[in-house]
């Protein structure tokens, strides 16, 4: 899929201000072409749904997705969280409870060890699939650091890509 990334990069639209902050020089942040109805859409034909949809809202949604289906292309910890972990652990990191539960990441004492979350991401845990095949060492480090310092968390220590690489070998 490498060649696909190259094509995406070549065709990517200029990044908006919102994600220029997180964009890295070498890997483009996702930026799908969007095609929202413009202001001059015939209002009689436009449904409530359409008229309630701003271009920014559509952009936010389509840019949630990676450019490469085999490997996440986001590089920022928060963006990575929002495109993967958030499915279960939710936007606020509080998890959820149904017939079983998704454990909260907010205030989760298991994360005192900086290696715990890296190991879980690399190998998966119970019903949670592994993400080691979809994120590289730097991405695993970024998202782990994000989780350990967000949702009210302030666990000490920083995970480096080298830490992740070493854990992959185990």
């Amino acid at each position: 899929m490498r060649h696909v990334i190259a094509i995406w990069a070549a065709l990517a639209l200029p990044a908006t201000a919102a994600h220029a902050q997180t964009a890295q020089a070498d890997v483009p942040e996702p930026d799908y072409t969007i095609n929202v109805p413009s202001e001059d859409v015939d209002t009689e034909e436009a449904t409530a749904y359409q008229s309630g949809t701003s271009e920014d809202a559509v952009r936010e949604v389509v840019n949630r997705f990676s450019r490469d289906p085999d490997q996440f292309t986001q590089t920022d910890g928060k963006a990575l969280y929002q495109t993967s972990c958030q499915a279960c652990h939710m936007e606020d990191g509080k998890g959820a409870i149904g017939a079983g539960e998704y454990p909260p990441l907010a205030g989760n004492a298991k994360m005192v060890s900086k290696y715990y979350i890296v190991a879980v991401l690399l190998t998966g845990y119970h019903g949670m699939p592994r993400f080691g095949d979809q994120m590289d060492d730097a991405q695993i480090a970024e998202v782990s650091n994000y989780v350990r310092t967000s949702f009210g968390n302030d666990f000490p220590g920083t995970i480096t890509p080298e830490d992740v690489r070493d854990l992959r070998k185990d």
Partner: protein
Amino acid sequence: MTQITPTRRQLLTMIGHAAGATAMYQAMTSMGFAATSDYTAPVELGGAKNGTKVVILGAGVAGLTAAYELRNAGYQVKVLEYQDRGGGRCWTINGGDSFTELGGEEVTCDFTSGYLNPGPWRLPIHHYAVFDYCRKLGVELEPFIMKNNKAFLHNSQAYDGKPQRIGDVETDIRGHTSELLAKSVQQGALDEQLSLEDQEKLLEGLKGWGVLDKDYRYVTSDALGGHRGWEVLPGGGLMPEKKPTSPMEFGPLLHSDLWQMLYTFNDYGHAPAMFQPVGGMGKIGDAFTEATRDLIRFNSRVFKIEQGEDQVTVHYEDREGSGETYQETADWCICTIPLSVLAQLEVDVSDAKKKAIAAVPYASAFKVALEFKRRFWEQDEWIAGGISYTDLPIVQIAYPSYGYFSDGPGVVQAAYDTYTAGKNYTYSFNTLSPEQRIEAALEFGSQIHPQYREEFLSGTSCAWHRVPWTLGCYGQWTEELRAAHYETLNEIDGRIVLAGEHCSHIPAWLEGAILSALDAIKRLDARENA
């Protein structure tokens, strides 16, 4: 108990480690416990002795298959179900339905003309057990169009993002590769592999197979029009003269990757003819539920399974009332609770079994359905049924295999994938709110069907990791996991046996759930009658 020789399981695990799951499976076959996986005839059970009682956890298709058959064989059966409905993942969302997801958001459905099957949605002909139960339970079936040559293959980075017809791509790939093969034969490149007689036969066959001309070229001709279609169709009276379409060039077609999207159509599990229940896949779940309704206790959340020498006790909570807890004691327990949930419960089984239960991740999957004011895919593009594939995150658009060419609204399955395909879009779709999923389906889909925004009425969706009673879609086995845990997971542990799609070699399919249930009850019944 001392073991001086390896158990069959240890032996198989060794074979699995050394030679892979296929070799292990072959070894299992030769050792006599994987002799056949086909459904050939209705299950025959010895029957219950003296009112033997079985408690079944989960009123999905596996649980209700077991309930239905065990009751017929004279067992006393009770089913505990977490939800207020039966059928499990064999489920259809219709207009007026709604449910609360994990995370607290409400999924609604305002459809007037169709439905969404969030889980299973089509039946391949070799899923014999499903068809037999449909016959038995009176579920009406109709054809499901899997492959429609008029539907599209779309790569946003090829042909300026213009979708191509499946039939064009397939005919052209076949034509161009036939021409290439014919050239190779004529240039003597296959002289070592093929005798002269073979070569003549091959050339003769390629002419028809690839629609080549007398010089073995794949070019525009009336003959090709008869296979690939017409720019101007043959008409009547004084209508214009017919004109064949022309092939796409080979190079760009190869590089478009579109022909690789034909893969699913050539898969045995998706080969024509496929079928679906009239009114949605939920009709199968409903039929099982109606057939066993008096055995089911709904809104019961199991939290603990204990067992002794000859009894098993299930502890559960009433989800409706004041959360009061109850116990159900039985001779046997068939547990079909998804492993994603079961791994979190207190279950009294061997350590090896606990490990197996905890080992299987649950696959990510999503679906979005959209209702439109009119069936523009039929009226504008002549796509009636079938599936278009795209490289965009919606992955595929499936057109309804019912209600063809009717006036008024129609419902399209506008986005769907599972992590079996390995694309991270499944995770990302599960992170979106119900409204955002609809927006994503509309936005990406309108690159294939520009009518989307104009014709849109409403949408609904299912993000399987947000479903409170499964926490994911299905057991995501790998060869390594199967070698290490599959047999342990399926073994009877004291008074407990597991069943469900996760206890089968056909994960995520109804057939897997049913075969697993039948196999589990046969083994329990054999113990009962030993």
